[in-house]
């Protein structure tokens, strides 16, 4: 049988990988990180032409199915890892067949939850991870995706201005439907609850999080957060015809949650005295789309919100409320954003994404001001941040996996 490589773009370097060896036996020098831990499948990370690729060994039909599913989800604009390809028809040197491999591109600056929690950033980190996962689950459910194995392990997290943005990394059990039934949504939530509790109990058993945290309370949070968000996004609202401002209000609430309303169903009863509204199409990324339009910056939604706030502050401080919004945005980008994000030395710059660095500096300035009880210029804040904070920050860009002791396994550069 000949090696059969399916990939969205031709990538000859793939041919150089040792496909005739079981993934488990790939030589260390090929790997971007040393593998450890228990997983259902063998998973390895390799560095290929400057990119880190995750390789998972599974049966060919399942690999192809997951590959197509991930592609479909990306086309639907969902936050999922980028599928690179499927390598099937593998044989050992003795002609024994080997399972196929699914290749995905490692999401830069993303972290597995174990690494997030072991860095012990803030006491409520776990809660914020759950919040991000709830947003992801709602988004997936809105497009009709039933996950079937919702868990922190099957998710990667990126920092987003003090919050997190969650990405789906494992779609093996997933199914795409036109519309999910309530039973399917509830089942996914139930799976999420059990898995999250299990994952938190495991971290506790390993001594990585304190005994004071309550795994069951944390796992219950996914259900609460999900239900609140689902309700906001899909509920039918009825009001008197003279309360038409409530249509705008609903849209404003959805925007503040980070969603745009693509389609709103508005109906009146037969004599026109009451109005009924229900959002039909909602798209996440309200703030990031606006920022992208104004500045060309493509960042996570919460980072975008933070940047837009700063942009508004800039506009007010320079009394330019009447100027063209795009012109002001351009000046802000040139005069504020870029100087700050470029000010860090190159070897430190890769520790986090520019937008996250910008957010951190703004936060830092606030803390400096509070402590000294006076204002600081942004230049002073940048310098102080680079001198005192950034050197101790973990290098997010290189974490590609974690071992069972929750120590991030770092890629060799």
């Amino acid at each position, binding site marked *: 049988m000949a090696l059969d490589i399916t990939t969205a773009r031709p990538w000859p370097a793939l041919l150089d990988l040792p496909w005739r060896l079981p993934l488990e036996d790939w030589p260390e020098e090929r790997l971007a990180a040393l593998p450890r831990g*228990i997983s259902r499948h063998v998973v390895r990370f390799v560095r290929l032409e400057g990119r880190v690729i995750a390789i998972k060994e*599974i049966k060919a039909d399942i690999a192809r199915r997951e590959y197509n599913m991930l592609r479909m989800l990306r086309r639907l604009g969902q936050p999922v890892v980028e599928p690179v390809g499927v390598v099937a028809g593998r044989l050992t040197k003795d002609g024994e067949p080997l399972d196929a491999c699914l290749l995905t591109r490692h999401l830069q600056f993303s972290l597995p939850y174990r690494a997030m929690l072991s860095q012990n950033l803030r006491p409520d980190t776990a809660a914020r991870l759950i919040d991000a996962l709830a947003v992801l689950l709602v988004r997936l459910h809105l497009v009709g995706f039933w996950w079937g*194995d919702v868990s922190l392990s099957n998710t990667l997290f990126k920092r987003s201005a003090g919050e997190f943005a969650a990405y789906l990394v494992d779609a093996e059990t997933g199914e795409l439907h036109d519309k999910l039934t309530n*039973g399917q949504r509830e089942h996914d939530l139930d799976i999420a609850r059990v898995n999250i*509790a299990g994952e938190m*109990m495991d971290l506790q*058993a390993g*001594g990585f999080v304190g005994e004071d945290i309550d795994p*069951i309370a944390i796992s219950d949070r996914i259900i609460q957060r999900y239900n609140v968000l689902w309700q906001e996004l899909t509920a039918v609202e009825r009001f008197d015809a003279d309360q038409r401002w409530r249509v705008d209000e609903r849209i404003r609430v959805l925007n503040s949650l980070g969603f745009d309303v693509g389609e709103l169903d508005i109906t009146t009863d037969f004599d026109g005295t009451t109005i009924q509204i229900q959002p039909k199409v909602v798209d996440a990324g309200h703030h990031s789309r606006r920022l992208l339009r104004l500045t060309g910056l493509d960042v996570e939604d919460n980072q975008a919100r933070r940047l837009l706030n700063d942009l508004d502050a800039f506009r007010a401080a320079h009394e330019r409320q009447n100027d063209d919004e795009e012109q002001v945005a351009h000046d802000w980008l040139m005069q504020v954003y870029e100087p700050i994000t470029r000010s860090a030395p190159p070897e430190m710059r890769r520790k986090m994404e520019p937008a996250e660095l910008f957010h951190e500096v703004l936060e830092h300035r606030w803390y400096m001001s509070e402590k000294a009880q006076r204002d600081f210029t942004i230049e002073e804040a940048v310098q102080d941040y680079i001198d005192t904070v950034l050197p101790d920050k973990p290098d997010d860009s290189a974490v590609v996996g974690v071992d*069972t002791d929750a120590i991030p396994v770092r890629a060799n550069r």
Partner: protein
Amino acid sequence: MATVTYDEATRVYPGADVASVDKLNIDIQDGEFLVLVGPSGSGKSTALRMLAGLEEVNEGRILIGDRDVTNLSPKDRDVAMVFQNYALYPHMTVADNMGFALKIAGVPKSEIRSRVVEAAKILDLEPFLDRKPKALSGGQRQRVAMGRAIVRSPQVFLMDEPLSNLDAKLRVQTRTQIASLQRRLGVTTVYVTHDQVEAMTMGDRVAVLKDGLLQQLDTPRRMYDHPNNVFVAGFIGSPAMNLLEVPVTEGGVKLGSIVHPVKRDPLAKTGDKVIVGIRPEDLTPASEGGIPVEVDVVEELGADAYVYGRTDVGGESDKQIVARVDGRQVPDKGQTIHFVPKGEGDHLHLFDPESGERLGD
């Protein structure tokens, strides 16, 4: 433990013209292992998901015991989907890995322990309860996952193609394990597969579905010996039953150059043609006359061999035919030999060419 009843249960997807599951009626006994089998698009998975609460039931109802669960949420039905996901947590002991879901459900500690120990005994995992999953073999880890479902002691186990991501060898092993475990536990189980061999080897009874319609519900033996229609005849059994459309003549059916005697009654219900079904093991070579078969491939299995060839009998030319022969007397490739039904033809199956329904017993 409980019975399960599908009562005219129907699922129509929004926008679809035809039902994915159409008026399904199945009574599953307490403790029974029922397999739903069929090709893709047959509605087997949908039927299972209706029971799990993942698919809506548009008409009819579903009962677990005497309880109508048609409109209950999945978690209120007291069913367990087994094998759906079995991540093991490395820092937790085997016992905790098995019992943690009970902790979430608020079950008291002492009861969790006793249920875990009980499940571990059945699964031969008792000596490992205080170890970490790392110390277990692949098969043992899988049993821990099963244990997670067992300790919940649900009324019904649901399994949707649980073996599909295992390799062939492990699949056969696990198949046997699941079947024997189910018998020891005596928990009513509904199992979905596309693989008829899996269905026949595991189920107490097998339900064959096609296009959302139940084709036959029987024990594996009865299903094999007495398929109700042409679809079941061709679907159950490996290699598949030979199905030939042949002329009806005075006193029987015409198989090539011979007339094979068949009772008059069943043939009275059909026209001048009938579909004859003969399993590969019910054919035997004849010195002369019968169904002429040009041999393409001989698959030698030792004691037996399967002859794969082509025949003109049955109207269409180059009709595929399979016959089992003595492994010590195999024909050569390219040779033409004649086959006739064994004995009196007791194992001959007759089907109506129009409706595909079985004729006679």
